């Protein structure tokens, strides 16, 4: 009896291992493994990311609200960089500011604020929620990120977009505004994902990410990088922000 059990358990273990390996291979093939899969809670991250990506495949649109829903007082989380260089740029209406795009693209380019404003614009009234628990509704105006990426022609291997804020992309001193973030192409190319230069029918205020910020409809607050300066299109998984938090953010 024990022999039978051993054989059976061996076969079971073999099948489970094979199924697991096949499953993980298939998940990697379809881009269902997040860059932080190997972190202490990476198993949960992977399950969450894979499940959400399978359920949200296609460009499912987040809820939009009406002008009357817009919150009177939106919350500032991480005010504008206090340094002199940023203030000089802001005082000048960000005339000397450029959005640089590089990485896996055919035509590396940089855009001025006016060039971005002259691209087709779209507005979305979205709920913005922080993982801490608070939320507000605001209207955001900008150019669709996929339109900008079309201008520079992303190469076929592109898997992630990394968003670098002003001024120092590597400065991760625990202040949210100075942290860079990355998202997968599903979020980057989503029709409600915009590079916003306007908020509630006005120019994007400095504390909310002027001159340009990322605004995604299907993501939590902190994924929407403010004070953008650079976008890197990449296929590298190791370029995400390594920290205590989750990469996908999900749920």
């Amino acid at each position, binding site marked *: 009896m024990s022999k039978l059990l051993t054989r059976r358990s061996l076969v079971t273990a073999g099948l489970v291992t094979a199924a697991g390996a096949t499953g993980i291979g298939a998940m990697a093939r379809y881009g269902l493994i997040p860059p932080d899969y190997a972190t202490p809670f990476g198993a949960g991250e992977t399950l969450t990311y894979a499940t959400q990506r399978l359920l949200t495949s296609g460009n499912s649109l987040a809820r939009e609200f009406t002008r009357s829903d817009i919150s009177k007082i939106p919350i500032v989380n991480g005010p504008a960089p206090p340094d002199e260089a940023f203030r000089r740029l802001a005082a000048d209406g960000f005339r000397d500011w450029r959005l640089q795009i590089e990485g896996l693209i055919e035509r590396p380019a940089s855009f001025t604020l006016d060039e971005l404003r002259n691209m087709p614009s779209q507005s979305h009234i979205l709920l913005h929620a922080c993982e801490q628990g*608070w939320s507000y509704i605001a209207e955001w105006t900008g150019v669709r990120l996929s339109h900008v990426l079309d201008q520079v022609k992303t190469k076929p291997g592109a898997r992630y977009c990394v968003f670098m804020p002003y001024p120092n992309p590597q400065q991760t001193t625990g202040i949210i505004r100075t942290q860079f973030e990355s998202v997968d192409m599903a979020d980057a190319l989503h029709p409600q994902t915009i590079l916003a230069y306007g908020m509630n029918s006005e120019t994007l205020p400095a504390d909310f990410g002027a001159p340009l910020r990322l605004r995604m409809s299907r993501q939590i607050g902190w994924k929407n990088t403010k004070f953008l300066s650079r976008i890197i299109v990449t296929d590298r998984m190791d370029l995400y922000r390594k920290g205590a938090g989750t990469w996908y953010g999900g749920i």
Partner: protein
Amino acid sequence: MRTGVSSASLDARVSAIPVTDEPATGISAIRTTQRLRHLASVRVSHWLFATGVLGLIASGSGILISHPRLYWGETGSVAMPSLLDLPLPMIIGPSVWNRPIHFFFAWFLVIGGLVYVIAGLTTRHLRKDVVPSKADLRWRPILAVIWDHVRWKRTSADEAWTYNVVQRLTYLIVVFVLFPGIVWTGLSMSFALMSVFPFMVTVLGGHQSARTLHFVFASLLLMFFLVHMAMLCLVGFKSHVRAMITGYKPQEGSAE
């Protein structure tokens, strides 16, 4: 317990399980003289639930303390009136590292729930051991159980082999109301998922309503957990934890 009607089906079923014919040493010696108390699927899902709930309460507290104010509707912040200000300090930061921990342990609850419900249906554990009999679903037998507890009346050995009507109702509420409720309200705070299932959050009244209800379900689960622990200590911590691990309970008076 004078309800009498509730089934002793677990006994009937497990007494039919042939006992091992291995030499009577160690655990197998106990097994030959013991009846199976908890099915393997119940034990596995129980510990998945226990791990999940403890991890979720701990990490959830870390997230809650980042903004211990509750609101109703879609929006809420320090600039808006709250529904309830919890008497907790507001500490910014823990939500960052508690978030992945929270989602990690949420999967224990989801997988445990699937194991429990699927096995509960296929082994008929749910129908036989958890769903109360019609005769028990009246105020008299329910109050009788409560009254017995108030009087600290010990259950007889036979009665202790089955769940009483109050236990059955409590487990049903935990598995089929609190667990789905906490998963529903949790998922309702997901922007990505609500782009596919927007009705899940709109029927609740909005993002902040979902968060508030998530807190309510969490509080009810915490209450269940505390009562569960209190009862466990009263009836014998060691023997019952052991029964939930091995499936068997040491003989009366032998291990406590």
